[in-house]
C-alpha cells in the first residue's frame, strides 16, 4: 500500500493501537504497527494488519480520479450548464428573448444579424435564434438520453444473456446483433422512420433500437471477463441461482464500460438526431431542433451565416462535452489505472 494509505490508516483509526493491550513495549515497524512473534502466539492472534484507505468505494475512487481530469470536468460542467439552461428556459428565455415559435412577419424583422434585441439574430421567419437554440437543446438532450436509455436497456439484457449463458443463446443474440450492424446506420434509421412515420418520438425509438447491438457486444465481452473471476465461482459454490449470479455478482462488476460507452453514445445520438432532422426525417417544423435549424440555414449560408453558426456550435460543444465526459469516465473507472 502506498504512503497515502498509511496516512489514512492513522487518520481514520486513531484508536486501533491504543486499545490493544498487548501493544506496549513491543516491536513496531515504521508505520507504527506492532510486530508480533507469530510462531509463539499460536493459536491465532487476531490479525492486526489493518489496511484502509478511508472507506473509499469503487465509485468513490472513480470520482477521485475523475476530478483530476480537467477535460472531463469541463465536459461535465458544460453538460450540467446546458441542462440547467434548458430546464429553466421557460422562466427567462420566453419573457426576455422571445418565443421560439413566435414568427414576426413585419417587413425587415426576419434574417436580422445579431443585435441587442436578438443576440443571435433572427431566422427567415423572424423567430429569435437564441430562443430556438435553447429550446433545441431540449429536443437534442431528450432524444440523446432516451435513445441511449432504450439502447442500454435492450443491450444490457441481450449482452447479459449472451455472455452469461453462452452457447446457443450467445450465437443467436450475437448473430442478430451482426445483422443489425451490417446495415448502414443512418440508412437503417431512415428506413425505420419511413415505416414508423417521421416524428419526435419515432426518432428516439429508431436511434434507440439501432444502438443496442454495440451496447450488447461491449457488455458481453465485459461479462465474459468478469465471469473468469474466482469470486464468481465462489458465489456459485455458495448456492446462488442464475438471477442472483447475473444481477448481484456479475452485472455490478461488468457495468463500468457501459457507463462509459453510454455517455459517449449520447453524443452520437444527438448527432444522429441532428442528421435525421436535417434530412427531414426527424423532428418536424416548427419544433426547434438543431438539425432542423441547420437544414433551414443551408440555403441562406451566404446571406445569414449566423443562422448555421449557432446550432452548429451548440451541436459541436454538447457532443464534445459528452465524449470528453465518457473518456474521463473510462479512465476513472479503469481499476488498472488505480493510483
Amino acid at each position, binding site marked *: 500500500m502506498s504512503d497515502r494509505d498509511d496516512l489514512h490508516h492513522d487518520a481514520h483509526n486513531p484508536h486501533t493501537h491504543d486499545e490493544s493491550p498487548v501493544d506496549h513495549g513491543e516491536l513496531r515497524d515504521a508505520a507504527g504497527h506492532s510486530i508480533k512473534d507469530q*510462531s509463539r502466539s499460536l493459536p491465532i492472534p487476531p490479525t492486526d494488519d489493518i489496511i484502509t484507505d478511508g472507506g473509499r468505494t469503487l465509485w468513490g475512487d472513480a470520482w477521485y480520479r475523475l476530478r483530476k481530469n480537467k477535460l472531463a470536468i469541463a465536459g461535465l460542467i458544460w453538460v450540467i450548464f446546458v441542462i440547467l439552461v434548458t430546464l429553466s428556459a421557460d422562466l427567462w428565455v420566453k419573457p426576455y428573448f422571445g418565443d421560439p415559435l413566435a414568427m414576426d412577419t413585419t417587413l425587415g424583422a426576419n434574417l436580422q444579424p445579431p443585435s441587442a434585441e436578438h443576440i443571435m439574430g433572427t431566422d427567415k421567419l423572424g423567430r429569435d435564434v437564441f430562443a430556438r437554440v435553447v429550446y433545441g437543446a431540449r429536443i437534442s438532450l431528450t432524444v440523446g438520453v432516451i435513445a441511449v436509455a432504450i439502447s442500454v436497456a435492450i443491450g444490457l439484457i441481450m449482452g447479459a444473456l449472451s455472455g452469461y449463458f453462452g452457447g446457443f443463446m450467445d450465437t443467436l443474440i450475437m448473430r442478430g446483433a451482426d445483422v443489425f450492424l451490417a446495415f448502414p446506420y443512418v440508412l437503417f434509421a431512415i428506413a425505420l422512420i419511413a415505416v414508423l412515420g417521421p416524428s419526435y418520438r419515432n426518432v428516439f425509438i429508431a436511434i434507440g433500437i439501432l444502438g443496442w447491438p454495440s451496447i450488447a457486444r461491449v457488455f458481453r465481452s465485459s461479462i465474459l471477463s468478469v465471469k473468469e473471476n474466482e469470486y464468481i465461482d465462489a458465489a456459485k459454490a455458495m448456492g446462488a441461482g442464475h438471477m442472483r449470479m447475473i444481477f448481484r455478482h456479475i452485472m455490478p462488476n461488468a457495468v463500468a464500460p457501459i457507463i462509459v460507452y453510454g455517455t459517449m453514445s449520447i453524443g452520437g445520438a444527438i448527432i444522429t438526431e441532428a442528421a435525421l432532422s436535417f434530412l427531414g426525417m426527424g423532428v418536424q417544423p416548427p419544433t426547434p431542433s438543431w438539425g432542423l435549424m441547420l437544414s433551414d440555414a443551408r440555403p441562406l449560408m451566404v446571406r445569414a451565416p449566423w443562422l448555421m453558426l449557432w446550432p452548429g456550435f451548440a451541436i459541436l460543444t454538447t457532443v464534445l462535452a459528452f465524449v470528453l465526459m465518457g473518456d474521463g469516465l473510462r479512465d476513472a473507472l479503469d481499476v488498472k489505472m488505480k493510483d
Partner: protein
Amino acid sequence: MSTLLEVRNLKTHFHTRDGVVKAVDGVNFNLEPGKTLAVVGESGSGKSVTALSIMRLIPKTTGVIGTDSDILFKGESVLGMDDAGVRSIRGNRIAMIFQDPMTSLNPVYRVGRQIGESLILHKGLKKKEADERAVELLDMVGIPHAGERAKDYPHQFSGGMRQRAMIAMALACDPDILIADEPTTALDVTIQAQILELMIELQERTGTAIIMITHDLGVVADMANEVMVMYAGKQIEYGTAEDVFYRPLHPYTWGLLESLPRHDVSEKGILLPITGQPPSLINVPSGCAFHPRCPYAKDVCHTQVPQLTSIEDGHSSACLFSGDPGFRRETASPSREVV
C-alpha cells in the same frame, strides 16, 4: 457414525479439441462427520476437479461425469439432483474455500454483506439479521474490530484477512462439509500457519468435516485424519495420516515425502525431487502412470495397470509391488510443528 459423503468411482472427463482429458479417473472415498480428509498431489493430478465435481461446478459444456460414477451426500445422490437441489446444498450443507483470497471476494460488496449473503439465501434471514450474524462470524475467525471491518470493502483487507473472511463465509450456514481448495497456497508462511490453526480450531468447535486439497504435505500432516494421494487423476495411496506419513507404500508418496524440506534433518540431508513431469492427462502412460518417473519401475510396470488394493487394514496402494513386505520405506513425519 453414518457416512457423510461417499464418492463412488468418480470419473470426470473433459472433451477438448486435443482429446479427452481424464482429469479424474475412478476415485473412491468416504468422509465421516467431523473428520478431515486430505487430498494430496501435484498440479494437474485431479484434486481440484474432484472437489468441483462434488460441488457440481464442472462446466456442462466440456466436462462429463461418468454414468457409473456417483456422489452420495447423506445417502442422496448429488449427481442425480436438479439445479434447485444442488443449490440448496451448495454453500449450505457443503461449502467451499478457494485458493486465492485476493480474487475470491466480490470487490463491489462490503465484506459483511457478502458473508451474510448465504444466510439470506439459505436460512431466510433478513438483511439486518444477516449483517449482525456476519459480524459474529468475522469475530469468530479472528478479525479485530469485526463490527467496523464488516463495513469495509474487500480491497481494504489483507490477504490473510480475506482468507479469514472466506472461511467465515463458508461456515456461515454451519455446513456439514467444508472443501478447502489449497486455502493457504496464496498466503505467506506465518499467515498459512494461522489459517490452518483457525481451521482446526473451528472444526473442533463446529464438527464440520473438511476435505483439504493441497500439494503441501506439511499442511496436511497436522490436521488430516485420512490422506488420499492422487496421481494423473487416480488414487494411488489411501490411508490414515499416520499410515501415509510413517509407512508410505507407494514410490510416488516416498518421492513426495523426500522432496519436502524438514527442520529435523541434519544439514547434510538433501532434498530429493521427483524427476520428470506430471504426465499429460490426454496420453496417460501405459501401465502404471507413474512408471516413467519411478526409480523402481520394472518391465511389468509398463504394461500392467496397478489397481488400488488394500495392503494393511484401511491402508491401500496402487503399486504392483506394494504387497511385497520388503518394498518399504520408513520416513519421519513431515509435520511443521515447531517444538
